[in-house]
């Protein structure tokens, strides 16, 4: 018997996901069968995908041809190191989400569980196929399956009008993106008509057409990833979708877009122009700053996380921009550093953002509330969720010793080298851009303190919250799995980078592995230990040792007595839950300092009001500056076109006749 190649195993895994999805239709209303059998099975397949991808990293690329597809274009599949890194991410993160979903979906909410199971597993399988596709046709089929299955997942609760609207917006922007991607593939074939990726790699495009392909890819994949200005679907779709779906979309699906962008710009196009990097860097910075500012002023916990995802995608785009710039100037070690930051941030973000989205799911189930203003004090009722969410919050704020900091550290390290760029002004502007990255990271800390503090800490803002219950066993396990990944990514950066370095090496021809191999596994020193080093494990151990030693000493030398009484609060008498900061109140400094960035409608109380109230509504400028004008224009054009369509068949026949005449006149042989 021949041994099973990794690519075959992954194909079988994709088929297994499809089969699990179809099995959900056997007994669509049987909750026990669907959620307690099929979803854990899906998680098992996820483990296999993750392990196989991990094992195949560093090996040679494998190809396969499936006998389905177009007559002269069968599905080409290829598993190389770049696909493997993202398949690794898909596998391991989906494990946590699937296990969580096993405990999450309840009877009588939204669509039938069997249908959810079908869409969910088709979504998983299509994402895996996106990663494996090696020709434009297979890629687009998988890409569209991914968009459609996630559209149906978003609109699970389709009885609400706002959810249908969110779903429509998502579908619209997904298709604008898909058109751009399709055009990008068209440009990259260079007119040769060979739609396989191997054919595109062989093409030598002129700088003009290569740039066109890059910009189309940036627009197309950017629409899926949520780059400004095509980000508007994210904050609408995430609150609409059930939490495991939000987690899957934010954690994994956005990364497939990053995968596509990397695939096109570093693998399929082989000449790189420096200004591509500048464009990606500028858009990335704008996206990150926009995302983080809006995430700090949100009052809906899932919208807050959705904007935070936009921010993280922005940071990833910044990293891609830096990589492109370094790559264009053939500074390959530095390009490898920035590329490692990109890949690491993809891994880190997918784990911690899924974790946070799942936590909001548990909170939603326990309280039926998404609005921050009606939550509070849940750490007392939901200690598991609260403590696991803290891991996600610290990672998301980009703080050591968890995963978010590692990628941020790598990114800042690569910024530090940008003065070496042989370009008259780039070498001055780029280092200053690092300051914006730090501002974004610090603002992310603000948003995360708001998220965590308002939901889990303080007094309960509504009396009903007293009945909130902690997550069930399945949910706890899923959350703990993702928290564990976040922790491991945080404290073992060298080990992880040594594995994913194969992808960097494949795209850029050089990696960081040689440098990292010289040092211990606990130390992260990508260039040299004298230049910069970070040892998260020692970092963690030092803080933990001080903490425990301090606690022991204090108890031993003094005492551990505690008395409970009511809060002091400078002796103020009224200490009810309404005296605490509201979600709006917490973000007031941001609204004030960055006022021009928001479109705000505010109502302030005056002294004469008999029933004074304060309200603030923050909206996205892009709606009014871009989307509504474009929508209006599209409407006007449609009205003009309607006049052509009189509905009389004679008129239509005349149109055909005139067209034929014109063609005969123009298109002579």
């Amino acid at each position, binding site marked *: 018997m021949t041994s099973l190649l990794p690519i075959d195993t992954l194909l079988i895994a994709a088929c297994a996901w499809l089969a699990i999805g179809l099995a959900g239709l056997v007994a669509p209303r049987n909750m026990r069968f669907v959620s307690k059998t099929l979803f854990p099975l899906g998680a098992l397949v996820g483990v296999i995908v993750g392990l196989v991808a991990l094992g195949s990293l560093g090996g040679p690329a494998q190809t396969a041809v499936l006998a389905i597809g177009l007559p002269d274009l069968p599905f080409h599949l290829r598993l190389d190191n770049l696909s493997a890194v993202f398949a690794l991410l898909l596998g391991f993160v989906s494990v946590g989400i699937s296990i969580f979903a096993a405990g999450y979906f309840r009877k009588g909410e939204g669509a039938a569980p069997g249908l959810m199971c079908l869409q969910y597993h088709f979504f998983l399988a299509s994402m895996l196929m996106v990663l494996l596709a090696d020709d434009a046709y297979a890629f687009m089929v998988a890409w569209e399956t991914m968009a459609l299955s996630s559209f149906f997942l978003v609109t699970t609760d389709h009885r609400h009008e706002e959810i249908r609207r969110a779903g429509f917006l998502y579908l619209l922007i997904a298709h604008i993106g898909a058109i751009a991607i399709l055009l990008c593939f068209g440009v990259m074939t260079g007119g040769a008509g060979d739609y396989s990726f191997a054919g595109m790699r062989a093409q030598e495009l002129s700088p003009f057409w290569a740039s066109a392909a890059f910009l189309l890819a940036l627009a197309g994949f950017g629409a899926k990833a949520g780059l400004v200005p095509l980000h508007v679907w994210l904050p609408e779709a995430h609150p609409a979708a059930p939490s495991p779906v939000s987690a899957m979309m934010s954690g994994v699906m956005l990364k497939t877009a990053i995968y596509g962008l990397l695939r096109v710009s570093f693998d399929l196009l082989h000449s790189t122009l420096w200004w591509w990097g500048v464009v990606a860097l500028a858009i990335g910075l704008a996206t990150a700053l926009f995302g983080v500012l809006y995430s700090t002023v949100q009052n809906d916990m899932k919208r807050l996380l959705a904007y935070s995802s936009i921010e993280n995608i922005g940071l990833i785009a910044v990293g891609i921009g830096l990589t492109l710039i370094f790559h264009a100037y053939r500074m390959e070690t530095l390009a490898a550093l920035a590329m490692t930051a990109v890949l690491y941030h993809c891994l880190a973000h997918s784990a911690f953002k899924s974790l946070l989205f799942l936590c909001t799911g548990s909170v939603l189930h326990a309280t039926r509330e998404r609005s921050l203003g009606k939550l509070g004090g849940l750490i007392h009722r939901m200690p598991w969720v609260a403590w696991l969410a803290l891991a996600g919050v610290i990672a998301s704020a980009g703080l050591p010793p968890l995963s978010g900091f590692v990628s941020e550290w790598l990114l800042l390290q690569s910024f530090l080298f940008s003065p070496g760029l042989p370009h008259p002004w780039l070498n001055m502007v780029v*280092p200053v851009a690092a300051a914006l990255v730090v501002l974004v990271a610090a603002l992310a*800390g*603000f948003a995360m303190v708001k998220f965590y503090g308002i939901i889990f800490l303080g007094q309960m803002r509504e009396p009903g919250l007293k009945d909130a219950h902690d997550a069930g066993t399945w949910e706890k396990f899923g959350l703990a799995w993702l928290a564990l990944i976040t922790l491991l990514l945080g404290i073992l950066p060298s080990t992880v980078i040594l594995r994913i370095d194969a992808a960097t090496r494949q795209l850029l021809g050089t990696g960081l592995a040689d440098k990292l191999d010289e040092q211990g596994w606990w130390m992260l020193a990508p260039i040299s230990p004298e230049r910069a*080093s970070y040892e998260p494990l020692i970092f963690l151990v030092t803080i933990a040792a001080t903490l425990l030693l301090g606690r022991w000493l204090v108890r031993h030398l003094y005492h551990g007595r505690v008395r409970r*009484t009511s*809060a002091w609060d400078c002796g103020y008498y009224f200490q009810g*839950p309404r005296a605490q900061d509201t979600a709006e109140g917490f973000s007031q400094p941001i609204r004030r*300092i960055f006022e021009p960035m928001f479109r705000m409608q505010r109502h302030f109380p005056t002294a004469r009001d008999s029933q004074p109230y304060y309200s603030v509504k923050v909206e996205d400028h892009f709606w009014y500056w871009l989307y509504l004008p474009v929508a209006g224009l599209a409407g006007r054009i449609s009205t003009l076109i309607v006049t052509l369509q009189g509905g009389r068949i004679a008129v239509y026949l005349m149109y055909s006749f005139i067209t034929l005449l014109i063609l005969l006149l123009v298109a002579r042989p």
Partner: protein
Amino acid sequence: MISISGLLGQAFAILLALVLAPLLSGWVGQCRAWLQSRTAPPLLLPYYQLQKLFHKDVVLAHGASSLFRAAPFVVFGCMVLACAIIPSLSTDLPLAPAADALALVGVFGLARIFISLAAMDVGTSFGSLGGRREMLVGFLAEPALLMVIFTLAMIAQSTSVATIVETLAHRELVIYPSLAFAGIAFTFVSFAENARVPVDNPATHLELTMIHEAMILEYSGRHLALIEWAASLKLYAYSCLGLALFFPWGIAPGDNFLALVAAIPLLLLKLAIGGAFLAGIETINAKMRIFRAPEFLGTAFMLAVLGLLVRLLLESRV
């Protein structure tokens, strides 16, 4: 490589920080009192206070969670780590590779997040107000601090604090104009980060103007002691960092025992001058409104960027 003397030096540096930090706070308080023609409190007052607080019972609010109880220890641990990696006496610190200057900013960020969350935990009006103001100061100060670090890291070609200090202390006498900008920006940032006038007032009695004090209103007993100690450690860490970066003379290179012994009185002298300077600035300035803080820290950021540009434009061509 890690040597016995290095480890001993590391342990000594941490112990020295733990012992000296309250003294520095006491010294600043005393200088302030002198400058304001008040009778000065005893120099050792912070030690008496710590001793008193450790003996007292912890009085917890009913709504306090376990996070509230854990936060003082985490903050204290972060500050000890920060003091351990900042070269105060010698640049031979075995813990230094654990965290470079960027991770040092991360340590302070971690402590800030924990104390802000703890402030929101009990759910009082002043607590959450303090928490959000602290985060406000944090996100304004961090970019400025990082630009300062970037400027220094470009001079030293390294982000390791020990390497930066070694480069600056043992370079041939070259005057870097960028250091002047970076130094002023760093001073601004350290005032904001350590909750000093003009951004915050450590001795305030007016709740509405509080930032740091508002966050720790609900703490008592050993928790308060640890937070106060951590706050003085932070002041000590920032002072040592500033002294090491901008006045690095006298810090022992490697494990030279004599130089190490000589470094102790020099450090004390530098800290005494630095503390008096801090008290002087605090005396001649008034606390500003909270919404002037962005201007103050924006200035710091601009100065730091100027420093960076000066470095890139003028110095790297030499």
